[in-house]
């Protein structure tokens, strides 16, 4: 006898609106379907119809409040390439430091959420207490705990001043001490090991086939990292290596436990990158073009298309941008967030697992629905949802390509 269990969109185990439909036979999950769109806010439309390109940076930041540097970073990389704006060296270093601070905060946040999903609430509280240190550092550097609002076409808006540097170093020292305890709690605890080892396995071949990104794919042994494969900002100076779980345990299983290992090691890697960046940060300007009107005019005149890629905490983030000369807004803007592709791996991971494993497996890819919900198919006149066949989709795709080529 098969039953269908809907989980979400409002559900205590999911902090964000998404619906997972699981078909079960007894305790065993035999099929999984994911329904998103509850979080669609039409940000691309806003960028193409309401905002000027500079305003769009800050709307892009609101795509996701957790990794709120990765989306503006992608947009800025793409627009800078089209308009031929070069950020000064110091700005590139500051961007790297900000990205890595974000990675530490995001991975620690995830570690807390994962502990909560396992029912280990005291660990959630401990991790979030530890995380407050990086939030304080972000507040010192950016003036606010969560939003950064720092990135700008051709540089950054806020410098990392000399008085900030000891604070950041102090934070690194704090995490160096906390790291061993965190590693012990997450990697040696019996409960966590039981709930995560051999749970939600994503094999190497499936990780490649599903084109997953970020820690989810690296935990399956795929050495893929934008910072390593296509370095941008000041990343070429740091020689970032993609982290896989075999660096610690000597083997790759591709389960939830491996995803914990990858994220923990990445926190350590981020600390090293920040320290390195602070030591080698050059002096100089932080903005290529401080005059906003001149900058806007330069972007308005620019024409062309480009792709911006950034290694967000959750994986590779891609923005496609097209600018048209004389057009006030972005002519075309397409966001592809990492969760969008990672979410498809849920089906592979959840197959043959138990219902109780849904929360931790779902959380193990660090899903971010606010990033994901980009596309909606709705027929307003009839009020019906429409299912498009592959022919329809192809036709629409050709149509869109033609429209963009015009």
């Amino acid at each position, binding site marked *: 006898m098969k039953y269908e269990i809907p989980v979400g969109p*409002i559900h205590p185990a999911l902090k964000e609106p998404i619906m997972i439909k699981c078909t079960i036979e007894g305790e065993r999950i035999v099929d999984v379907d994911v329904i998103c769109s509850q979080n669609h*806010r039409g940000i691309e439309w806003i960028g193409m119809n309401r905002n000027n390109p500079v305003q769009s940076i800050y709307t892009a930041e609101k*795509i996701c*409040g957790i990794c709120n540097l990765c989306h503006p970073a992608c947009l800025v990389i793409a627009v800078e390439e089209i308009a031929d704006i070069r950020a000064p060296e110091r700005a590139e270093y500051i961007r790297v430091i900000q990205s890595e601070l974000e990675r530490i905060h995001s991975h620690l*946040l995830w570690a807390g959420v994962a502990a909560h999903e396992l029912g280990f609430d005291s660990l959630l509280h401990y991790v979030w207490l530890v995380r407050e240190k990086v939030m304080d550092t972000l507040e010192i550097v950016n003036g606010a705990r*969560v939003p950064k609002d720092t990135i700008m076409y051709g540089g950054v808006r806020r410098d990392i001043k000399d008085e900030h540097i000891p604070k950041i170093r102090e934070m690194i020292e704090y995490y160096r001490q906390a790291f061993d305890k965190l590693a012990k709690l997450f990697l040696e605890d019996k409960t966590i090991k039981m709930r995560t080892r051999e749970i939600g396995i994503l094999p190497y071949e499936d990780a490649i086939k599903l084109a997953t990104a970020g820690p989810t794919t690296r935990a399956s042994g795929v050495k893929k990292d934008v910072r390593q494969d296509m370095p941008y900002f000041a990343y070429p100076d740091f020689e970032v290596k993609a982290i896989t779980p075999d660096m610690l345990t000597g083997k790759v299983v591709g389960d939830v436990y491996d995803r914990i290992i990858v994220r923990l090691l990445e926190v350590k890697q981020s600390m090293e990158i920040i320290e390195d960046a602070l030591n080698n940060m050059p002096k100089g300007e932080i903005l290529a073009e401080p005059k906003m009107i001149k900058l806007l005019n330069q972007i308005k005149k620019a024409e062309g298309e480009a792709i911006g890629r950034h290694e967000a905490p959750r994986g590779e983030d891609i923005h496609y941008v097209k600018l048209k000369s004389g057009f006030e807004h972005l002519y075309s803007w397409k966001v592809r967030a990492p969760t969008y592709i990672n979410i498809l791996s849920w089906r592979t991971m959840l197959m043959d697992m138990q219902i109780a494993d849904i929360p931790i497996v779902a959380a193990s890819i660090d899903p971010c629905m606010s990033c994901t919900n980009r596309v909606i198919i709705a027929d307003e006149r009839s009020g019906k949802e429409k299912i498009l066949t592959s022919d329809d989709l192809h036709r629409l795709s050709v149509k869109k390509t033609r429209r963009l080529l015009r």
Partner: protein
Amino acid sequence: MMISKAFKRALWVFHVNSGSCNGCDIEIIAALTPRYDAERFGIKLVGSPRHADVLAFTGPITSDMVDKVKRVYEQTPDPKVVLVVGACGISGGVFHESYHLEGPIERIIPDAKCIYVPGCPPRPEAIINGVVKAWQFLEGVEK
């Protein structure tokens, strides 16, 4: 304000994400975890709207979430307060004019008693302050 009276009712909060960017959501969790530790006052997140005194809404209400938001509101027993966390729920915030928004929240549930916590996102202190305001309202009802 006497402490014994003040903490007669431990507030239970049900959190609904109605299209938020997660910025407010992580600040709500931060308000509950040890640095700010609202849990010591008995304020905690619960798993069902049927157990809640306060509904914390984050995000502008997207079209898909309208009926769910209404249903959650109806499921919560009276007396109840809606805590609107963040600029999006108050006015639409940066997403105003978007084609997929039905919010702000007062348009969806007009008869709700709303307490607004502005900010993008508000600091955990501000969220705790909002919960205190909610408590004051609920205590007033009880009298």
